[in-house]
């Protein structure tokens, strides 16, 4: 039903990605007609949410200027932040709503497009039940938009199936933190990092995925702090690691249990903290007993002496700090991996103190705020459980509906796609999500999209997923709508509107409201501005875990952001959680949770003997919908490559730059090899930002963590062969297929 209506070449010709290298009108025009104002706001990309000033001329963003007063990044930016302004005036930008026809897409009026969207969703629900329609949201949306996505699904569509692309990002960490601490937020502000004596980084490519955090780590080293890096690859921060543990993919939980084994064996635990502030320690202590350094080395590939040293450093430090990201979380035991890090922090009393703690490095722009207020399938605003009767009553009252009309928990993002594939969910409304590139097993995703009876998308560019849509509603870039986001630190900040959407494109928040009003009941969506949405959100969150009741736009504007929980307008916010050992569970105690080692959902074996792991590069963001259109960022890393150790490459007769075919139990793709000694010889790495025949997610698998339902992107089994020649996609890409990453010869 919903196959792309044009060939990929025709779609590309009309909708891109084209590369924009210069601001609207070109550099010369910018030189002649400089900006007429600077707008203090935040970067649209990752969860660091760096402060940035956008240079605006008329209704166009034409450049940037550092914002040195914003305390988190003090003017620092990564290349994505520097060049983000090049989305403005982009030739690929959708300026009108689009409707699919047999001959392609035609532009349409808002009236026609919104009517069609609402009519088709209602028809499907009338025929197949309310839950035959699902809603996808995204964690790059402002918190107001995220809140609207949840409310639209539950109040207007009354479907239980609403989930978001954070399901591919923060849910393992979130689930583990809720289990251990009773709250899903990084406990420490980033200003604690330079104060740490030992920093342990587990599965986090800090330099490329959270570049600003690098300086925080280096400042700890300036004070004499030690850095321990756990990763199958030497990522750029490893150049200053005092200890590098090259863990075998998928064995992180064993390594962390091995570290805790040594801590307990040597009596380095903090007994008084454990007794006063935690429960469940004895069971965890028993569970790590078998993981001697030797046993741990056998499984993880990390030398026993390195395990001894890391445990000793972490255990003996006055202030130790653990940081983790998708490397340990994108696994079928992602939650247990995180719990095992938390167990180490709790056992050594490294939590809730200045310079001591454990934090998750949130990935997406609003990765934190986007999951707090109701677009997650099992949560209501305020990080409340949708299964909690009191929470349901509170939110139903704020929304002016009966509690029994509020749907229960629905399916998660990957499960929604599986339900579509089975033909159960037949209609989908999606915003800020490009599942064809970002979900695992993309051939399966494509089949599912083709089975949809109706697919509506809100987006600013025609993403690869949107090419399958029946209706594309031309939405807004981050700088074209106002709202708040919550950073990796738990700091709520104000994203200011810099310009109006171009053409007939409209602000996402208005589009969501219009759809909701047409679906009805219209009086439940009376907002005239994002601020009015935020005012309701404050009430919906009041008394919840993520309590925003005391946060106002005015307070955010007169400060550099506020950390939640912030229950009253006189409350200063909470930069550091758990001070004095007080946790969010009813008894105030943190929980040790027993973890166990389980095999990957896609185990290596004789036929597929090599680990495949995936991730990001510094110049691209997520599925590349935005960054694959920004010329300098594409030039920096033009095409995906297979990082392969010379030992493995030699055994397969593979030279640098050879075309190689990587095959898993799902599919095969052909990319150029990149020989580097900075990866384990039993593992290859490919970044995931690209679509089509260059998409590594054709090869990844849909095994989910049983608790968080995150897919296992970081561990697949593959084999590699030298290819006979270039793949078909190389001809389509032209010279770019042969280009090196910048600086590589």
């Amino acid at each position: 039903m919903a196959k792309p209506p044009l060939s990929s070449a025709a779609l590309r010709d009309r909708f891109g990605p084209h590369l924009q290298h210069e601001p609207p009108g070109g550099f010369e025009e910018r030189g002649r007609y400089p900006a007429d104002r600077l707008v203090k706001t935040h970067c649209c990309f990752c969860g660091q949410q760096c402060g940035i000033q956008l240079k605006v001329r008329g209704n166009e963003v034409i450049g940037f200027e550092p914002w040195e007063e914003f305390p988190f990044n003090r003017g620092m930016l990564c290349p994505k932040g520097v060049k983000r302004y090049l989305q403005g005036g982009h030739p690929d930008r959708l300026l009108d709503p689009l409707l699919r026809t047999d001959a392609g897409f035609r532009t349409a009026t808002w009236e026609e497009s919104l009517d069609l969207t609402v009519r088709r969703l209602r028809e499907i629900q009338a025929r197949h039940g309310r839950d035959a329609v699902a809603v996808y949201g995204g964690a790059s949306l402002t918190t107001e938009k995220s809140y609207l996505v949840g409310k639209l699904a539950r109040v207007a569509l009354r479907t239980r199936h609403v989930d978001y692309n954070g399901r591919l990002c923060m849910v393992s960490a979130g689930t583990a933190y809720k289990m251990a601490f009773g709250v899903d937020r990084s406990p420490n502000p980033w200003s604690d990092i330079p104060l740490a004596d030992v920093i342990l980084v587990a599965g986090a490519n800090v330099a490329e995925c959270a570049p600003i955090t690098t300086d925080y780590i280096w400042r700890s080293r300036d004070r004499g702090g030690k850095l321990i890096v756990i990763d199958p690859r030497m990522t750029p921060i490893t150049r200053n690691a005092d200890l590098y543990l090259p863990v075998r993919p998928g064995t992180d939980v064993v390594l962390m249990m091995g570290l805790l084994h040594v801590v307990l064996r040597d009596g380095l635990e903090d007994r008084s903290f454990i007794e006063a502030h935690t429960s469940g320690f004895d069971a965890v202590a028993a569970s790590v007993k078998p993981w001697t350094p030797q046993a741990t080395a056998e499984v993880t590939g990390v030398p026993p002496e390195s395990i001894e040293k890391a445990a000793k450093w972490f255990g003996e430090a006055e202030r130790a700090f653990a940081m983790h990201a998708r490397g340990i979380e994108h696994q079928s035991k992602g939650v247990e991996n995180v719990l095992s890090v938390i167990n180490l922090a709790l056992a050594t009393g490294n939590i809730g103190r200045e310079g001591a703690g454990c934090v998750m490095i949130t990935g997406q722009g609003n990765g934190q705020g986007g999951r707090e207020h109701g677009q997650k399938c099992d949560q209501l605003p305020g990080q409340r459980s949708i299964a909690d009767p009191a929470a349901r009553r509170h939110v139903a009252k704020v929304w002016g509906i009966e509690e029994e009309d509020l749907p229960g928990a629905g399916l998660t993002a990957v499960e929604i796609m599986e339900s579509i594939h089975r033909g159960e969910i037949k209609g989908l409304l999606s915003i800020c999500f490009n599942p064809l590139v970002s979900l695992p097993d993309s051939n399966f995703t494509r089949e599912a999209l083709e089975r949809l009876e109706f697919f509506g998308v809100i987006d600013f560019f025609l993403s690869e997923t949107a090419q399958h849509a029946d209706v594309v509603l031309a939405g807004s870039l981050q700088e074209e709508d106002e709202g708040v986001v919550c950073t990796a630190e738990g700091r709520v900040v104000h994203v200011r509107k810099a310009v109006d959407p171009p053409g007939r494109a409209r602000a996402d928040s208005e589009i969501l409201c219009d759809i909701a009003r047409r679906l009805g009941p219209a009086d439940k969506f009376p907002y005239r501005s994002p601020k009015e949405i935020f005012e309701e959100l404050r009430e919906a969150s009041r008394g919840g875990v993520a309590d925003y009741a005391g946060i106002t736009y005015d307070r955010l504007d007169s400060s550099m952001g506020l950390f939640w929980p912030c229950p009253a307008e006189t409350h200063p916010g909470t930069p550091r959680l758990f001070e004095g050992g007080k946790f969010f569970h009813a008894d105030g105690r943190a929980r040790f949770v027993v973890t166990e080692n389980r095999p990957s959902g896609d185990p290596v074996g004789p036929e597929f003997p090599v680990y495949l792991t995936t991730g990001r590069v510094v110049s691209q963001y997520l599925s590349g919908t935005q960054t694959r259109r920004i010329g300098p960022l594409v030039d920096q890393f033009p095409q995906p490559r297979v990082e392969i150790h010379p030992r493995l490459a030699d055994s397969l007769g593979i030279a640098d730059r050879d075309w190689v075919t990587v095959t898993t139990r799902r599919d095969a793709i052909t990319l150029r090899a990149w020989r580097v000694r900075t990866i384990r010889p039993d593992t290859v790495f490919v970044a995931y930002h690209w679509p089509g025949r260059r998409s590594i997610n054709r090869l990844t698998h849909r095994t989910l963590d049983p608790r968080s339902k995150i897919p296992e992107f970081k561990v697949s089994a593959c084999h590699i062969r030298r290819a006979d020649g270039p793949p078909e996609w190389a001809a389509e890409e032209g010279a770019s297929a042969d280009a090196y990453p910048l600086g590589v010869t």
Partner: protein
Amino acid sequence: MHGYEFYVDPSRCIGCRACENACSECDTHPGHPMITVEYLDRENSIATVPTVCMHCENPTCAQVCPSDAIKKTPDGVVQSALKPRCVACNNCVIACPFGVPKMKSKFQLMMKCDMCYDRTSAGKRPMCATVCPSQALSYVNPREIGRRRETPVNTFRFGRQTVTTKVFLMAPEPSTEVAVDVVDYMWERKP
């Protein structure tokens, strides 16, 4: 920012190219960064190094210029060649011991970093040192740099030539062991 100095610390560099991208935004040379980031040897290491003009006290580029096109400001900043004088001969490009000046054929002109004279003269930090997320490029007070592990140096010997520079390079602490291959850090079962 009186008293601030420019420090380059390659050991902090993460190769992200925020500096290059930001430098190329300057309206005097848009699209052409005056700073470069290079991998030392990507097959063997993730190490990268930024190269920026060191602003020599007695600049070799100016010494070898046949048309006296390269000038130094009173505060020690060596500037790009003056357009009316530069004959695009490439002497400076070849002679610079740090490999900094670039011939921009589009402009028929030698161009190089002038330490963001427009910014520093207005009390701002140079653009690259402002955005650098690892502070491999820092424009700070010498007291602040004194807290780091590394030591600032600004005297360099190239054969018989000794060069003193306005910009400091951070020299790392001595180390007893260097390993770059992941295999060197792994535990493997003996066959």
